[in-house]
């Protein structure tokens, strides 16, 4: 992401001692500008990772379903955005409404036809969702071909001294905060949230109190799928959209949710902030490839040191 910033200023010619002072001041300015740009990239990386993981935090962190098709849910959200935008729909509606609604519908069908038979069967659910991911990739490739698609970034850019960056970076951060706030309010302050949290802890006891666990599982899975679709929609303008793009997301999403631990929100926020920071800073000082290597290495060390994840150590009992 750092490489996307561009130097837009030029040196003003001066002479003698003055030129030395101006140059020093200029270089200090450049360093400050660069620090701001790097900080924005780090925040953007954490926000993107959080958005990417939120759906999985619900489906895997809360429901204990190992959904290996999570990346494909994100990919479907991205394609829904591209197709809608290319059909003339407003890009904001395509990203924020069509993508989550379409993937929620896909999630609902998948839950009713496949997942509901596999609750409590970790290995079976893993195999089934792996097969599902292969099916979705094949299906999308058949329809759209194995080519990269995209949509233009809807917001313009702004300058930070000698560098430029996109307003979309700030928009992604805002969306991550809004999504976290909405999920917190939903889970903490609504009846559905209370029933969902109780049902995921002990479905048999919830049933003894009058809850239909199958219905709550269906609704919760659909919510998780919708959030995955939203992530796909939001990342569509800054990603190359291909049928196999989900593969790039799945490992990152799983290590972040596992690293976050049992608290689906505070754990995911903490893990995505930490891993987003490590990933972006690693990429800045080395290359994006090494950035990923540093990220995965850090994740292994973190899980070794904190087997219950970050929230198992620091946010016990929190949402």
């Amino acid at each position, binding site marked *: 992401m750092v490489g996307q910033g561009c130097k837009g200023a030029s040196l003003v010619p001066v002479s003698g001692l003055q030129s030395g002072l101006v140059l020093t001041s200029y270089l200090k300015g450049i360093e400050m500008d660069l620090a701001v740009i790097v900080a924005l990239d780090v925040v953007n990386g954490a926000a993107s990772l959080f958005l990417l993981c939120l759906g999985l935090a619900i489906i895997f962190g809360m429901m204990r379903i190992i959904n290996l098709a999570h990346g494909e849910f994100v990919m479907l959200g991205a394609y829904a955005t591209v197709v809608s935008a290319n059909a003339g729909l407003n890009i904001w509606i395509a990203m924020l409404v069509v993508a989550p609604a379409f993937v929620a519908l896909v999630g609902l069908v998948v839950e009713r036809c496949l997942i509901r038979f596999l609750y409590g069967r970790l290995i079976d659910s893993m195999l089934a969702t792996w097969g599902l991911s292969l099916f979705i990739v094949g299906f999308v490739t058949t329809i759209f071909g194995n080519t990269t698609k995209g949509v233009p970034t809807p917001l313009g850019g702004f300058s930070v001294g000698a560098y430029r960056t996109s307003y979309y970076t700030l928009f992604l951060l805002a969306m991550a905060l809004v999504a976290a706030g909405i999920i917190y309010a939903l889970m903490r302050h609504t009846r559905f949230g209370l029933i969902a949290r109780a049902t995921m802890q002990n479905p048999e006891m919830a049933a*003894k109190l009058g809850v239909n666990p199958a219905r709550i599982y269906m609704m919760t899975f659909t919510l998780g799928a919708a959030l995955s679709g939203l992530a796909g929609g939001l990342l569509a303008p800054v990603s190359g959209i291909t049928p196999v793009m989900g593969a790039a997301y799945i490992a990152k999403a799983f290590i972040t949710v596992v690293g976050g631990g049992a608290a689906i929100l505070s754990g995911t926020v903490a893990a995505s902030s930490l891993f987003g920071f490590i990933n972006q800073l690693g990429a800045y000082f080395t290359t994006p490839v090494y950035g990923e290597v540093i990220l995965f290495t850090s994740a292994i060390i973190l899980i070794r040191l904190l087997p219950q994840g970050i929230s198992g150590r620091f946010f016990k009992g929190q949402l």
Partner: protein
Amino acid sequence: MSALLQVAGLRANYGRVPILMGVTFAMEPGEYLGILGHNGMGKTTLMRTLMGALPATGGAVHYRGRNITALATHDRARLGLGLVPQGREIFPSLSVYENLRMGLVTAAKEDLSIIDAVLEDFPRLVRLLDRRGGALSGGEQQLLALARCLCTQPDLILLDEPTEGIQPSIIDEIIETLAGLKARKSLSMIIVEQNLDFITSLSDRVLSIQKGQISGTVAREDLLAGKIAMSCA
């Protein structure tokens, strides 16, 4: 008066192992019915089968004249059956207040005044409302499980070994609370227990269960007089 609950030839298995082998009994509205039995005789299995958590493999259960043998657990709860399970099964990461709110899920609109009314019988829980359920002691969890069940406003409570692992002072508190409820409300209750004092102090009638079958009946008066030759004690 027609029976509130009628159980006829009820059978249930764990896998291929038969546990209930034809349980038959009936109870009247407002009755507190005790069921005594040693470990492994089928007491908890009977409770779980009555609640629908374990499917019946034979026989029938009628509640208020309606055959509920094939009904799902949550539908039985909505009909007015409440279970206080063995081991309490408190939702550990929910607060005490949230655990109580879970007792209100059957109502179309959540009426929090029901919780306030229930808490009048459980003063010990009032100061613990913000604490996580998993952080309570066993006795406090038992009180919470009972209060949560009462929040569902059941007509028939299935109380499974409420004194198991509980300190004596809390057992007395539970007896006092249940006796108070019996005097004030038109509740019915099936109490499964091994604690003879507990079951004697609350039950109108006591059945004994042996090897998955009801093996006899003793009137509460006989229990008080110590005439329990048929019981498992």
